[in-house]
């Protein structure tokens, strides 16, 4: 049975206590998008400023649990300044890491495979994600996956709305 230390890594608690890129950007020129976690009532607000095909700035507002807040903070640090295709790729990678069941988990868990062999996270290049790797343990707590992916899904939706691919 996974222990709490798998979930609450030190780096996660650090980003939770001292979140990076907090706040909102002025809209316009920035784009503002909200995300909800129906499970716990958390709301996240992501402000994006895309300039010349790159994510020139990003800010995070809203409230949430340690996992959703630290994931958002880690995300903001990871994507800020990157080109849109790079950001898209990182989103894919991150969601791959959280995957297996995420798609079926608006508020729960989708398959009988959690807890047996199929639960192994997708093979991902751990070096490519840096600090984000700290969130890997979340996948062992299926109910919390939505917390970790909330900000990422919100970001992806924001890029969609902007027509940025």
């Amino acid at each position: 049975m996974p222990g709490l230390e798998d979930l609450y890594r030190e780096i996660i608690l650090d980003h939770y206590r001292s979140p990076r890129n907090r706040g909102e950007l002025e809209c316009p020129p920035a784009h503002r998008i909200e995300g909800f976690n129906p499970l716990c009532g958390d709301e996240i607000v992501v402000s994006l400023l895309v300039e010349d095909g790159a994510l020139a700035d990003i800010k995070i507002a809203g409230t949430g649990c340690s996992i959703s807040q630290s994931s958002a903070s880690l995300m903001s640090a990871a994507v800020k300044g990157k080109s849109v295709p790079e950001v898209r790729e990182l989103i894919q990678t991150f969601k791959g890491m959280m995957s297996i069941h995420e798609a079926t988990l608006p508020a729960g868990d989708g398959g009988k495979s959690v807890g047996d062999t199929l639960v192994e996270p997708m093979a991902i290049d751990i070096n490519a994600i840096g600090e984000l790797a700290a969130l890997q343990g979340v996948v062992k707590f299926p109910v919390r996956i939505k917390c970790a992916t909330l900000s990422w899904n919100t970001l992806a939706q924001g890029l969609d709305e902007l027509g940025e691919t």
Partner: protein
Amino acid sequence: MALSESTTAFDVAAVRKDFPLLARTVHGKPIVYLDSAASSQRPRSVLDAMRHYDETTHANVHRGVYTIAEEATRLFESARVAVGRFVGAPDPAHEIVFAKNTTECLNLVAHTWGRTHLHPGDVIVLTEMEHHANIVPWQMLAAERALEIRWIPVDDDGQLVFDDLEALVDGARLVGLTAMSNVLGTINPVAQVAEAAHRAGAVVVVDAAQAVPHLPTDVTAFGADFVAFGAHKMLGPTGIGILWGRREILESLPPFLGGGEMILDVRKDGFTPNEIPWRFEAGTPPITEAIGLEAAVAYLEGLTMPAVRQHEIDLTTYAMGLLRDRFGTDITIFGPPDPADRGGVISFALGDVHPHDISQILDEYGVCVRAGHHCAKPLMRRLGVNATARASFGPYNDEADVDVLAEALQHAREFFS
């Protein structure tokens, strides 16, 4: 008449032992349960799975962080995937919606798809052999929206008449049909109807309440858009029905009932609906029932559906032969003459003894058959009767059951002559 072992593709005697209710006696006689088309009995494995869940795991699903809530959620969602796979759903985690019974599933389609897409003057096509569950929701909508309902007729052999199919579905927005008649046993060529319907631009709603328990069923092979069925006829518990819907269509639909679970957000000025399939599941779902359903699916998979089907063909063949031998022209068996064209359901008339009276006499022999309109009154009118007596089979029935049925019928005929 002796049991002929060779006619069964699996070991009926062993199957029977799995069903606790079959140990019951009625009026001092062993029960002969021939009403599985109304509701089936459940194997011990289903009852055990539900009991085990209730004793060790129960918590409300989808919202709890704690261990048993997570386990309950996992088991509940696992049932969704299991039953979806069982009927060949391409994307079971998203395409399977749980409701309380088959009837609610069909109402769900009428409320969500129907209210979105049907407008005054639009045409719905149904068959004359539909169960009320696939008629009344459409009649209610037709009354509200001034729709026209057309009917695919049934011929004297209990088969749908397709001579004018193209003309019937022409201009239709929706075609609803049963995959297997609960009265006649008729197995309908769903794929053929679906193809014609789709060519005409209609969506296709299949009532598979009788098909899923008795025939290998594949929603993709049906080529349908919605397929509804229920657990309590497929060796599972009461209180849970299953709707499969094509993912793109489900995605496009508004919610059905309102409440918890089906929302992402509620504000004083409105709400944001949840993703599929939860969008259609307002309130606490039938959790223990989903666990029982998964166990029922596992049990049927253990038997294998082709074997279940073969067993029912064999038993139906035996029963039709025996009843005809015994009662000659005194018995009318409704529906297709060839057992291969029908599921394990035999509706009949015996002389002019009323089905109600037949059933009453049969009960003295422990024999359970249904008497009535079987929730298919338009079909009854087509057959020119108010009611039929109906014997229907589950995987636990054997030839000895049929023998007792024939004996008891003999007595009924004598009693009223």
